[in-house]
């Protein structure tokens, strides 16, 4: 094993290798996968001089700790958390040069859920269909990190960004507000059901994961019963299973499904959804599609 690698000392609750995912394979049943808080992933890469396509580590709630075998530069973004290098405090949201053998610890999130740890050169796990992203639904890509595991690092791309710190953008808010474009199956719901979507008090369920953000709240009343023939599901789809509670499809979602999609949350709002801790109040703001489309 080359020295360009790191060893996992504390994998945390769930830490996965992520990049921008593998788009273009949905027709084969392959989910997009990729970093759930994509802006944070892109920023972490930029801070250490990587292209935004390089792979980072996405942690969940409790962070992670690794020992690097080579001198490198690291940066932590996303959910704010205490960062230490060999036990000494280091800045969050800034490039941090670390010597070979150093232990980098991204601690538990103090707000939000998911932090991103980037290394100069990126995590060089074996790509699958052009992506290093771990896909937890299909089991594609590198397995979630485990204590004692070793992962390779790529060669550095260039000098890290010349910044001391970045503004903490997109911090989790007290309330998750999710605009959604109605359709394609809003006609499966009654007027009252659609009103419930717009006015209901929902909360993020603790059953949420990388596949979907589940909600708790008042069920949406349906106009049509029965099953819908399986159809393509986009990222951000608000799928409503028979219990009437919307599930917001995140990056590891199945590519087809049989429950009606009442609306679609535009992708730019999904990073906030990915940082919403269980119990966070959720408000949906439905609006008609911009293109009428209906012919």
């Amino acid at each position, binding site marked *: 094993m080359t020295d360009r690698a790191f060893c996992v000392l504390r994998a945390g609750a769930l830490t996965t290798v992520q990049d921008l995912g593998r788009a273009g394979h949905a027709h084969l049943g392959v989910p997009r996968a990729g970093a759930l808080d994509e802006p944070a992933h892109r920023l972490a890469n930029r801070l250490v001089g990587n292209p935004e396509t390089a792979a980072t580590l996405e942690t969940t709630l409790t962070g992670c700790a690794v020992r690097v075998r080579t001198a490198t530069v690291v940066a932590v973004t996303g959910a704010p958390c205490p960062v230490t290098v060999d036990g000494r405090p280091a800045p969050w949201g800034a490039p941090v040069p670390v010597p070979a053998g150093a232990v980098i610890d991204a601690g538990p999130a103090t707000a939000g859920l998911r932090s991103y740890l980037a290394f100069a050169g990126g995590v060089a796990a074996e790509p699958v269909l052009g992506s290093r992203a771990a896909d937890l639904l299909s089991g594609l890509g590198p397995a979630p990190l485990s204590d004692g595991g070793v992962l390779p690092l790529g060669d550095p791309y260039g000098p890290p960004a010349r910044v001391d710190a970045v503004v903490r953008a997109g911090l989790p808010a007290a309330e998750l507000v999710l605009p959604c474009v109605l359709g394609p199956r809003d006609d499966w719901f009654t007027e009252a059901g659609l009103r419930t979507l717009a006015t209901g008090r929902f909360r993020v369920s603790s059953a949420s994961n990388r596949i979907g953000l589940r909600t708790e709240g008042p069920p949406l009343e349906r106009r049509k019963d029965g099953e819908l023939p399986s159809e393509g599901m986009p990222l951000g789809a608000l799928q409503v299973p028979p219990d009437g509670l919307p599930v917001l499809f995140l990056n590891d979602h199945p*590519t087809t499904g049989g429950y009606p999609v009442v609306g*679609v949350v535009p992708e730019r709002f999904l990073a906030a959804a990915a940082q919403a801790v269980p119990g966070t109040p959720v408000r949906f703001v439905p609006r008609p599609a911009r293109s009428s489309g209906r012919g």
Partner: protein
Amino acid sequence: MSTGNGAARTRLPLRPLPVGDHGLLVELDDAAAVEAFHAELLRRAAAGTLPAVREIVPAARTVLLDGLADPGRLAAELPGWDVPPATADDRPAVEIPVRYDGPDLADVAALWDTTPEDVVRIHSGTEFHVAFCGFAPGFGYLTGLPERHHVPRRATPRTRVPVGSVALAGPYTGVYPRSSPGGWQLIGTSDVELWNPDREPAALLSPGTRVRFIPVTTETSAASPREAR
């Protein structure tokens, strides 16, 4: 893939529905219309006359187009397309060896009002093709069984269906590419490798692929199904 050369082109009844600000779900009358429309999309994409799109996902009655810059414009254009009927895939059929030893074989025989031996004869005597994929990488929804042989899902889904299970549900038959929960009726087992990311193409089955099931006996097939990762 089918070329459609020379076939009569007709207007397909279709209904584009908005999917967010950058997607369209195009609803069609039946599976044959989905195949014809999907083939036309692929032809136009190959010819460079389709607007840039991130995903084209055919399904039972719909095709999802996702990642369009201006879905409204394409939605307005679609009803004017002349589309030839789907033609048979010109690639050779994929042959999938099956041990017809599934726990639901007798139940399926009862639903078909026939014997388990007849189920094997009919299933292996049918030429299927992949209507669409989904559920898991490598899983194809295969059509070809006549309507009288369509069966309901199990009333209680199994918490674990073994990898390689050959199964029936509704108008479809399929092979589980990995172990998962599932409600389909299990009639057999196959060792076929449906999905291998190190292979090109990774998926053995893609929309349009023709498929035949070849009965094998337990004695001639020593290998047991692999465990899913």
